[in-house]
């Protein structure tokens, strides 16, 4: 039920993102979802890829600081109020969202919400209990 995500530390300087994506391409790694969080001085790139360990090793080898964290992926129908419905449940359960981002799958019917919770097990329990579909890493890669 959990998805492994890799995170990369980025200084705010030009060309770094391009460098990362080309390293991944050279290693035949497919990016399924990504988000960049940034401050005035630095950024954090978060990626969900098909080959987590390989991606991590390749980036490390190229001198990047790479971390691995666990997130959960929630599938919701891609229509108005889809995200609001999930967040309402999250809020109701008193779960704390560290960050989130989203993408729409190829068919365009469903959206996938990536959440980082500090209480990941309880989050899975709460969301599943409310009828939401939680995707595994393999399922995301298969989308």
């Amino acid at each position, binding site marked *: 039920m959990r998805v492994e*995500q890799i*995170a990369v*530390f*980025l*200084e705010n300087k030009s060309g*770094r993102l391009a460098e990362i994506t080309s390293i991944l391409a050279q290693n035949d790694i497919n990016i399924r979802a990504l988000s960049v*969080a940034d*401050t005035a*001085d*630095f950024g*954090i790139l*978060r990626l969900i890829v098909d080959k987590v360990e390989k991606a991590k090793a390749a980036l490390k080898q190229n*001198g*990047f*600081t*790479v*971390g691995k*964290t666990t997130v959960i992926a929630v599938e919701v129908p891609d229509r108005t109020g889809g995200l609001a419905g999930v967040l309402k449940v999250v809020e109701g359960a008193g779960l704390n969202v*560290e*960050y989130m981002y989203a993408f729409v799958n190829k068919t365009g019917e469903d959206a996938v919400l990536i959440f*980082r919770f500090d209480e990941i097990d309880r989050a899975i329990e709460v969301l599943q209990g409310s009828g939401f579909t939680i995707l595994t890493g393999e399922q995301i890669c298969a989308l």
Partner: protein
Amino acid sequence: MKTLYWEEEIETLPRVGLESIQLIRLKNLVARVYRTVAPYRRKMEAAGVRPEDIQTLADLRKLPFTVKDDLRDNYPFGLFTVPMEEIVRVHASSGTTGKSTVVGYTQKDIETWANVMARALTCAGAHKGDIVHNAYGYGLFTGGLGAHYGVERLGATVIPVSGGNTKRQITIMKDFGSTVLLSTPSYALNLADAMDAVGVDPHSLSLRVGIFGAEPWSENMREEVERKLNLKAVDIYGLSEVMGPGVAMECLAADRGMHIFEDHFLPEVIDPDTGEVLPPGEKGELVFTTLTKEAFPIIRYRTKDISRLIYGQCSCGRTLVRMEKVTGRTDDMLIIRGVNVFPSQVEHVLMGVEGVEPHYQILVEREGNLDTMTIQVEVSETLFSDEIRVLENLSRKIQVEIKDLLGVTCKVKLVEPKTIQRSEGKAQRVIDKRKI
């Protein structure tokens, strides 16, 4: 211009007279220190030298040097020559590993200090009737109180305004009619800019002379301060281990260098690598021996300041030897906004933060008139988090600890691994982009 002296006889004494005073005082000092301070006695015994070996001023070089570590090893009061009940004041400077160096003064030392400081003020043309705006920091730092007592001894009026609160300082200058400014040169420039911002014309003030020290500054900076504040800028030298401000002072003739009050502070210039005394006029590390201090005399203290000694009478009439403006350091000490900072202190803080790798670099710049220090820290895997908040807290934690230990505000910049250049041999820890 009429030159005034505070103690004309000693300040214009021919060298031979001065040297005989120095010799008598030196012999007394060495005998007293040998008798009363065990660490000095041990060092002299190890070097095979006894007080009676000091028969001429040249014999000074037989004595071992004193270095900052000797002060630390005997922290806090181990090098004092008198019982604590004779000590009326202590001052301290920040230490490289959290241990500061402490100096003490007897009542007579305080009087000696006030007297040399009064000499220094007179050297800069200050006199009774002046309103002296003392913006050196008051506290453990010797600058504020050292200058303060000198102004009172001179008989002028001292405004103990200390550092900071710049707007208020300008109001005070205007309303009280400050005629003499004492501050670091960078703070003087800061004051000038603040005056500009609040629309106070320096020409409308009564400032006549500025006595600037506690950090290195250039001739360009002198020209800039003089122009912006409409005053004459002169240089003062001192360090707490020797006394505090008032060890040497530039006169208004400002030919070249600062007059060392050498009836109290005996200077030498040595080769920092070999420790050999250099011939007069050669550039090297300044070394001081205090001739009259009671509580905390110091023998051959290595200042790590690079300068040279200029003998020969100055056009102001003083015969006292002059030391050239300090042009550098033999160690890696940085002076940031008047605060002494050693890279090792920064390292000490960083190593105390879990996960910080020993790869860091200190970037010093001057923005406007203020020095800024940015510490670049490589983000290792143990330090890294996918949450912004965690990384920002890390930066803040380093900032707070640097401020706590060093008393200086810095910026922290997290950088990617391997971005800080690895050097072969000694790492380049400091990039100083200030043009001094």
